[in-house]
Each structure stands twice: as C-alpha cells, then as structure tokens.
C-alpha cells in the first residue's frame, strides 16, 4: 500500500536548458494516447492505491495538457482513489498556462495545491534557462489564481544560474515575497548531463558561478526567507507553517510511494523501481503488462532513509527509524560522530540534524553514509 501517488506528465511546450527529467514536446495525438495508458496503469495498480493520501501531478508540464484532457484525467484520478482520505493534491504548472479558468478547473476537480515553475523574474536568467515567460506573466498568473480563491500556491525558483549576480538574487527574493505564496522552493542550478546547459558548459560557452558567490547566495536565501516568515523545512524548501508539502515530506521520510507514467519512480515495500523513460517503450509496456515497466533499482532502505531524512530541518527521526528498520544511524554509520565533533551535526536522543555549517556542507556529511 502506498500513501502517495505520483503522476508524471512528460509533455512540455518548450524544453528548459537545465531539465533532465523525462519530457518531450509532442503533438496532441500523443497526449491522448499517453493519458489512456496512464489510466490503464492506474487501474492495474488500483489495489495498491486504496490508502492514498497525497497525489502529485508533475512533469514535464502537466498544465500543458489541453483543458478537456486535463479535466478528464482529474476526474479519473478522483474516481480511482478514496477522495475522503486525500490530504493534499498538487499539480505543477507553467506561468503561461495559469489562467483564471485553469485555476477554476483544478479547484473544481479537487486539486488543493498549485506549484508554479517561476525560476526567476530576471529576463537574462529566464533566457539562460530557456524559459518562455516573463516576470509580468508570473504576476498575472498568481493574480488569476488568487482571484479564483485558490491560495495554496508554491513558487519554484532557481538561483546560482550562470551570469547571475547577487543583485539578481536579491531582486528575485523580493519578487518571490511580493507574490505572497504559501510555499517557496529555492533550488540552485545543478548542471546535469544530457541537458543543453551542460553541453554549452562543456563547450565553454557558459561558465558556472564561483563557489564563494554560490555559498553567499545560499546563505542569503536561508537568511532572507525565514526573516519573511517562511520556515525552512528542507534544504531548499520553505513554507508558512502548516503549508509544507505533505507529498514531498512523504519522500523525505522514505515512506512508500507509487509513481505512474513514463519514467516515474516508486518505492514500494523496500523495493525501488522505475518505469521506462521512453514513450514508445512505456506505451508498449502498459499495453502488454498493465504497468509502465517497473524496472527494479538497487535499494538500501535504511541508508536511503538516513540520507533523505538528513535533508529535513527536523533531521533523522531515530525512534521512527528504529521502529521501522530496527537500526540506528549511529551504530551503522559511526562517522556521524566525527561530523558532530566538527560542528556539522546536532545529535540527541530523538534526532540527528544538520547545523548551519553542516547544511552548506551536506554532501560532505553524506560521505559518512558511504561506509557501513
């Protein structure tokens, strides 16, 4: 049984230069065929979805679906799960797709949370990232959502983008706060292989920010947002108390979740698996077996629970892990004591969590989980 359901919509109107998620620009016929396959996959997994409490429709760009197709999908999902159990239902959207009608539509179907991919308000940075909207589009989109009396909105931002200055970041922070969302994600740009930006970087056409500037930016975000009332609860996620993403916390607490759609990942009964990341293979697999492939990934549940747990501000919940895995991080990964000595971790009976110094060196701390 999974309490969280992820639905992947791989379609986009334009491809962002930094994105390495399974996605594509596709004609309408593909979208219809894909939604049909999604439905088949969900019906086949129905027994596993009886306890679902959170749904997250991500992408790609779910909002790029035509409204009739989107409406059909939302109706279908509502019929497949026990709506009374649902505590959160999120959909991702691009600013250009977010209109008053869109907001009314998703609200009417039962969606409770909207996550908008803003990334930045600075024209040069938006261009660098291959985004097609403007700052004004974002303002208009957020206003439209609020006009529809839909308030549980997250805005995604990306910073430390090539050429970005401290002034750019400060402007984006001010921009984000002025939009009054209930939730903010501030990610740094991570160069992933098989993206356009990575290619440009390797060819020497763009250079990454230097470490010192990136560090100062990270510290600035972590200072400014909490001052404005957004409590940080994960490395790059901030919320007005009570509006933390329940679905994402589900991932970070290493609880089971089921992902449906092309390339979607799942954690189910201590097994990780993912669907075929290519559309043709995904469609063929659903047709043949009812599932999207369920290719098994290696999994070390306890280690993963530790790694993910430490990303949260509340840290690793020792009692919870003991009950679930009958293991304690300190016994298995004694190097954590060295991290504590170096001032990177706070360790007490209930939890293991990062200090400010540990947060900015999280990858270094994570090396401690490499042993054991």
């Amino acid at each position: 049984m999974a309490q969280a359901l992820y639905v992947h919509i791989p379609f986009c109107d334009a491809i962002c230069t930094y994105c390495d998620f399974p996605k594509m620009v596709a004609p309408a016929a593909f979208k219809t065929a894909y939604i049909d396959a999604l439905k088949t996959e969900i019906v086949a997994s129905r027994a596993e979805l009886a306890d679902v409490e959170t749904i997250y429709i991500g992408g790609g760009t779910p909002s790029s679906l035509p409204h009739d197709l989107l409406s059909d999908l939302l109706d279908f999902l509502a019929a497949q799960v026990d709506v009374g159990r649902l505590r959160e239902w999120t959909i991702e959207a691009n600013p250009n797709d977010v209109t008053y009608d869109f907001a009314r539509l998703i609200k009417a179907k039962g969606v409770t949370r909207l996550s908008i991919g803003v990334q930045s308000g600075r024209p040069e940075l938006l261009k660098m990232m291959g985004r097609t909207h403007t700052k004004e589009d974002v303002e208009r989109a957020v206003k439209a959502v609020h006009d529809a009396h839909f308030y549980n909105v997250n805005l995604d931002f990306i910073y430390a983008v090539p050429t970005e200055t401290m002034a750019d970041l400060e402007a984006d922070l001010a921009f984000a706060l002025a939009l009054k969302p209930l939730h903010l994600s501030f990610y740094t740009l991570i160069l992933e292989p098989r993206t356009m930006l990575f290619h440009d970087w390797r060819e020497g056409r763009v250079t990454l920010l230097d470490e010192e500037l990136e560090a100062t930016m990270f510290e600035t975000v972590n200072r400014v947002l909490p001052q404005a009332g957004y409590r940080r609860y994960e490395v790059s996620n901030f919320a007005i108390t009570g509006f933390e993403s329940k679905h994402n916390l589900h991932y970070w607490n290493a609880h089971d979740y089921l992902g449906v759609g092309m390339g979607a990942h799942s954690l189910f009964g201590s097994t990780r698996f993912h669907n075929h990341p290519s559309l043709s293979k995904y469609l063929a697999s659903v047709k043949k077996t009812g599932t999207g492939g369920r290719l098994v990934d290696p999994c070390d549940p306890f280690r993963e629970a530790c790694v993910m747990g430490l990303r949260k501000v509340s840290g690793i919940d020792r009692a919870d892990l003991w009950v679930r895995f009958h293991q304690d991080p300190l016994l298995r990964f004694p190097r954590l004591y060295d991290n504590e000595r170096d001032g990177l971790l706070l360790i007490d009976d209930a939890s293991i969590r990062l200090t400010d110094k540990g947060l900015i060196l999280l990858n270094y701390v994570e090396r401690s989980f490499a042993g054991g």
Partner: protein
Amino acid sequence: MPSADVEKVRHELEDTIGLDGKAAIPASAKMGIGIVEILEAVVKNVPAPSGSIDEPLQCLIFDSYYDTYRGVVPLVRVMNGVIKKGDKIRMMATQAEFEVMETGVFTPKEETRPFLSAGDVGWFTAQIKNIETIHVGDTVTAAARPADHPVPGYRKLTPMVYCGIYPVEADDYQDLKDALEKMKLSDASLVYEPETSQALGFGFRIGFLGLLHMEIFQERMEREFDMNIIATAPSVGYRVVLTDQKVIEIDNPAMLPDASKVDHIEEPIVNATIISPSDYVGNIMELCQYKRGTFKDMQYISTSRVELRYEMPLAEIIFDFFDKLKSYTKGYASLDYELSGYKRSNLTKMDILLNGEPVDALAIIVHTDFAYDRGSRMCSKLKELIPRQLFEIPVQAALGSKVIARTNIKALRKDVLAKCYGGDISRKMKLLNKQKEGKKRMKAVGSVEIPQEAFMSVLRLDDDN
C-alpha cells in the same frame, strides 16, 4: 575466412620473428580447417618425453594452488618414476615429507587417476597445509628411494620494480600475509618482505618483474583474495654508495639515508629495444632523449619497420614511458628491455608533505634535473586527487628541508545539492555507492584521506595537461 591473408602472415612471421613461414599450417578453428594437420605436426615434430618409470621418482613442480579442503595442490610434470596414492614423497629443496592422497590430470577438468608416471603432466594432493614447503621449480622425489639429484628448476628471476603493499585496514595485515603466501604458490617470481611506513603502517615491500606483473598482482589481490590494498608508487632498486664507501641497496625511497652520509647513488640501466613502424622514429627518439636515454643503434627490419636500441635508466621506463610510447606511436610500438647494469647518476630524494607532515609512502627518488618539474606537477596532481576537507591542506614537495613546490587543497566552502529531490533518488544513491567503493581504497594519513590513485600519481603526471 574472407579476411584471412595467409601469405601476408607468412611474410610477417619471417620478418618479425625469423621463423620459416613455409612451415606454418594454415588453420581456422571456426571453419575446422587444419585441425588434423596441427595434431599430426605435434606428433611428428614435438619430441616424446624421455624418462623411465623404473628410475627413482622425479617430478618438477611448475605451478600450484591452494584448495581450502585439500591444502596445496602442486601441478607437476613427472620426469622419471611413478607417483601414486600412499607413496611417501619428499620435496628436494625443503626436505618436507608427505603421503600422497590423490593423483590426477586435467582434461581440462580435474580428473582423478590411479597414478602418474614418467611423461605425465598432472596434479597430486598430500594434505600439504604449510604453503612454504612447496616451491615452484622444486623436485618431488620418493622418500624411500630418492633421486640423487633434482631436475633443473627455473632460473630465479630478479625483480626489477618494487612497491609497498599495505592493507587499507590495519587489522587485515595477517590476511594480507596469508594472501601473499597463497599468491606465491602460483607466482614463483614474487619476492616480498615486511616493511613499515609511518603513513601506512605495517605492510610488505614486494618485488615484481615489471609494471605489468605489478598490475596483475594488484588485480588478483583484489579479485581472488578480496583484499583492500594500497599500493605505493613503484620504485627501482638503487645502489647507494655511502661516504665511508660502504654500498647499500635500497628499493624504497623512504629508506634513503640522510644526504650527508651519501657519496653517490647508482641506478639500474636497461637495454631497451623498441620496434615500431618507421613513421614514428622521430617521435620515439624525442621521447627517449627526454627520458635520459642514450642512443645505441637503429636497424630497419623491413622497409616499414624499424628497431631502435637505447640505453636507458630503468626508473624512466617505469615512470610512464610505455604509456607515452604508445601514445607517440598510436599504439604500434613494442618495447622490450633487459637489465644491463648500474650507473652513477645525479639522483636525489623528493619528499611530499601533506599538511606539513612528510608522507614517507609518497617519497620518490628523482634525477635532479627533473626535480622541480616533477615536484610541482605532483603537487597539482595530488591537489586534484585528494578530496577537499573541512580545512585547508598545504601540499608541498621538498628536497631535504628545501620546499621546491607548493599548492593548497582549499577547504570546502559549499558542498550541497540544493536540488529538487522527489521520487528519483537513485542517482544520488549511485553517487554514494561510488563513494563507498572509493572509500575502500582510501587511507587516512593523519587527518587527511589519501586515495589509492594519489600513490600512483607520480606515474600519471601527464594525464590531462
């Protein structure tokens, strides 16, 4: 086969190794051509074993391996006599005696036979628990009726290259020792003795026939014996003439006496023979010159192939010479070398200091002319290889007390992936697992963790610049 060019290959046989090309039998295992002819040729041309079953037993041990249940299993060629179950036998070199339990041959599967007699090649077991009693090259004879002399064994090979081998975890020292003993069963050329390093703890100094031998050894240690080992950079054996004219031999740079006590150092010199397509002669000569080689001779073997002979310090050969040679000749050149003697040379010991502390296992002996260059390149290579820590680590190269190169491994400032971790954390875990593998090959020296590659860095200074 369509691509076979029998005549060309016949020519090449004559050109490159000087065999009579006409005697070669054209064959293809895939097409079943020439199989009968080859077997016939073996019968006709390969002499039958001499020896007699009536003579006293003489078996030459040519290999052996260790079986957990049956002990050492020597592989033997029976020269004279018969060996069978229940026989009391004696190793002629070590005088150890055993009772034969089983005899057999390989087909290639191991198969038991009631006895082995003169002319047979096979194996026997005799509950041999003590590995040291079995030497490859030794002769096995009967205890009751011993042969009066052993059969000629193998020429003892002198090691050319030495390196230190240390367990990553100090607790594994005994396991490493056991593994070495077992390894020696099948590799008679392996020479080792215990040594200690301030940086790496207890380990062994091991002599190898060459770099390839060393690499195979390391690979086998990891694959067959599942040992996590750290190998130091290879070194050659030097002759050090002290001021009191006493001569000592050292194979570990860290053992070099204080400069004030050293009169001069002699290094091993080899005769190197390089065979290559003639297009690359210029490149090869340039490389050999740079490697302190002295030109001896050049001969055209055919119109397009040339043989170059150089006299060269062995140390230069083990120091990335072969890799360079291959890249200078697009992989076409072959290299062969043999030790020719020792020569006085202007050598000095270079220490590497991490965080202000000399790491003995990183010390190398270099020619004075190359010291500055190698020192600074080694420092930047180490900077690349040693993971950054919470504090800054100075990396220095020094001749005696004089620092000749320095660089710093900067302290970590920001090292966090502030990205969207949703359902897919498999990549993150993959990265962590890779680190886990890497960790096995890291040695903590003081407060700095040094990866295995760092010890080999001296050999690979040109990888990317």
